[in-house]
Structures are given as C-alpha cells and as structure tokens.
C-alpha cells in the first residue's frame, strides 16, 4: 500500500508537504519499473520549475526517464546522497530516496493530484 501522507501524479511522482516546504520523489512502482538505478541528474538549487516541467533525469541500466515536477515552485534542496548512491532510490523510494525539495509551492497545483487511495486504484487500473 502506498503511504497516505502525500499526494501522487499520474507520472508516478509523489509530493509531501510540510509547512512551506514540499519534498518530491518517485513511487515504489516507478523505481521497480526502472530497475537498478545507476545515475540521477539532480536539478539545480534555486531553479524555478513549472508544474509538469521535466526537471530531473533518472538513469537505470537499460534506460533513462524524465521526472516531472508535480507542482510549480523553487528548488530549495536536492538529495546529494543520490549522486554517489543512486540505489537509495530503489531501496527507499518514499524516505531516503527523496529527490528534491521545493518552496514557493503553488498550492492550487496540489489539488488535482491523487491521494494514496486514488493512486493505488490508478495503478490497479493501468497495470
């Protein structure tokens, strides 16, 4: 079951809001589909991103995948451990494998995102 403390996009990103900061990562379904992750190209801190904008690339042994920001905002931090240990994304996609944090989040962008139950259903319908 996916965690209920965050919201989800149809492209399998999650976003967890804590006060004025939001943390973004990819779901367990996404990391499993990608396979062994070998490289993460993190976005630049202070970069502004728009909802749906490609802001990060995740490479696995066989392929590369774009990660889209689920909301508009400003990148305030990136998870540097992923540079040396990208496998953290596979092992702990919801905790240690977080990818970037945002501030100045456009609250309206959060509304259309799915909650845990809806995302779970989305996965069942699309598998």
């Amino acid at each position, binding site marked *: 079951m996916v965690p209920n403390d965050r919201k989800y996009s149809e492209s399998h990103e999650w976003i967890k809001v804590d006060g004025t900061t939001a943390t973004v990562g990819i779901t367990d379904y996404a990391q499993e589909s990608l396979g*062994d992750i070998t490289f993460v*190209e993190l976005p630049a801190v202070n970069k502004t991103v728009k909802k749906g904008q490609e802001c990060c690339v995740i490479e696995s*042994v066989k392929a590369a995948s774009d990660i889209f920001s689920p909301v508009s905002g400003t990148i305030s931090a990136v998870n540097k451990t992923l540079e040396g240990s990208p496998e953290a994304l596979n092992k702990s996609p919801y905790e240690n494998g977080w990818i970037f944090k945002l501030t100045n989040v456009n609250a309206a962008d959060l509304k259309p995102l799915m909650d845990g139950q809806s995302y779970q259903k989305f996965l069942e319908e699309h598998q």
Partner: protein
Amino acid sequence: MSETITGKKTVLYYAHRALGARMVAFGGYEMPIQYEGIIKEHLATRTAVTIFDTCHMGEFRISGKTACSDLEKLLSCSVGDLAIGQCRYAFLCNPQGGTIDDLIVYRIAENKYLLVVNAGTQKSDFEWISANISPATTRATNVSEYTAKIDIQGPKSPGLVNKLLNDSLLDLKYFYFKYCYYKDTRVMLSRTGYTGEMGFEVFCPHDLALSLWNDCIQLGAVPAGLGARDTLRLEMGLPLYGHELDAQRNPAQTGYSRNISTTKTFIGSDRVTSPDALEEKMVGLLLDGRSSARHGDAVFLGEHEQVGTVTSGSFSPSLQRAIAIAYVRKEHSHAGSILTVATERKKINSQVTALPFYTQSTARKPIAQFL
C-alpha cells in the same frame, strides 16, 4: 504493463514467470531480462554462480564428407585444424564482407560439426548455410527446436557442475567440450560462455531442461537474465549481433583477427582480409561519470568532427562507471585518445581504452583452482 505475448516461449518460460522475472521480447522469444535485479545478477556472475536460459539460441548439425570443406568456405575461422572436442568462435560473412552472424563451431567427430548461432538470425543463417553446402555430400539439420541450452557461469560454476553432472571436469580446457550424463541421459558440456567468467554451456534435450534448471538453483545458482548478460559481455568487449555486428559491418574491425583466417578463402574473405578493411576499429570508451551512452550515439573529436559511433553502452556494475563500445576511425582509435560522446541529453568526455574493460575475469584460468 500489458500482458501481450508476442514471442515464442522457451521450455523454461513458466519457471521464469514463477520466479517473478520481468520478461521482454528478444530474438523472437519472450525472455527474462531480470529476476532480482541486473546489478545483483551481474555481480553474482563475477563472484559466485548464475544460470541463464539460452534455449532461444539456434543449433545446426553439419555432417558428411564435405562438411569440413564447406564450413571452411562459409566460416571466417580455420575449421580443419579443430580437434575433436574443440570449438571456436567465427563469423559467417556475406559476399560483400559484412556479417550474417557470429557463432561457435564445434567439432563433434571426424565429419560432424555443430554450429551454435544467435536466436534472431537462426532462420536466415540456416537458409544461407543450406544454400552454400555441397548438396550430395554435406547434410545440414536444424536441431534448434529439440536442443535446450543453459549457461552456468561464475567462479563457483565448476563446483556446481561437478555435483550436477558427477564429472571431475579437470580435463575440460577452455573452448573444449565433452559429454556427461544427467539423469541417465547424455548431455553436452562446453567450457564456453558470454560473461568472461569461468563457466559452461549445457546442451540437453528439451524435456530435461526444467529439471536441470531447478537442480542448478537447488545447488546455489542465481537465475540471471538478458540484462546482466548484456552488462557482463559489454565489460568483456564481446560483440553482440545487431550492435557491433550486422550485415554491413566488416568483422575484421572487431579486432578478432585470430578468428579470421588469412590462409584460406571464404565467402567475403576478399573484403574481410583486405588491408582497407580496418578503416574503422572497435574500441572501448571509458566515459566520465555514471551517465550512459547508447547504441547510435555519435562520437566526436573536439566540437565538430564526428569520428565514430557507439554500438553499445551502459553503466558497468564492476567498474562503477559508464562504458561504451564504439567503432572509431583508425587514426583516433589509440588507447588514451580523448573523444566526446553526444548522448541524447548532453555531451560526455571519454577516453579510448583497450578491451576488455574488466581485467579480472576467470574464464581462462585453470579449472582446478575453482574445484
């Protein structure tokens, strides 16, 4: 993920599904790309023992009093000097000097040979061979449908095979084969593989394959899929048909000169052994960092001059960095040359290196060290 199955199933298909393998269409078959993970399976091959389903590959029996002379005409390697029980890597070339397939030829008896070919090219290989043998005195039979093959690879493989087949293996040299017994049925065991590690290929009748596969797992083998098979062979600089070899590629450019005879003529030899053949050479590229290059990426000298093309690329689990194989114009193919690879997203600096990338492979070591 949709469940549409487009390829044929090997006899081990359901075993892979039961193990939770992720399947992919390859060479006309539904094959496992990974079970627990490509990197895990790759490292298990280099340090322990893994098994690969290679039933999809093709096998042809070539026999008769002109079998040897016909094979000399068809294959790039020297055939006549193979000992009974010995095998050799060779290229099957077209008259234009391109590659129809790469394969291994086994000498079974005086006038009996076995060819082991790639899955995707099996039909066209057999048509080509059948059209180019002496009709009355050489017979070619496609036994692929009846022949199952499992690759058992890794430093712990001799210990496993010793128990599996109850054979000491001490007399089995690299690129030689022998017959053993599994459940009272004769099977063929060759000391060959596509990983660079000490290992074997077991050829057996279809109906024994599942039992043999399961016995290997019981004896500690880790199932490994095509994903790891690719990263392992890439680290060893081994060509993959469809990437480093194709109908337009002159196989002399791979650098495998030991498998191209200059003392006989064979179909395509005038182009393959010509001095102009080496205008491009196959090289290894060590990329800066972990981001990979892929098949088709252009290779540049400086900003503007394209000097080559990547044919395979990936992250290397053993070297922990991105590596690639490319064909590069011969003037720029020396080890140490700095070239730039234009990947889909960015340009990456790389250094030309001699192959293989991985230099601690165990395939050629004395088998006694591992028993």
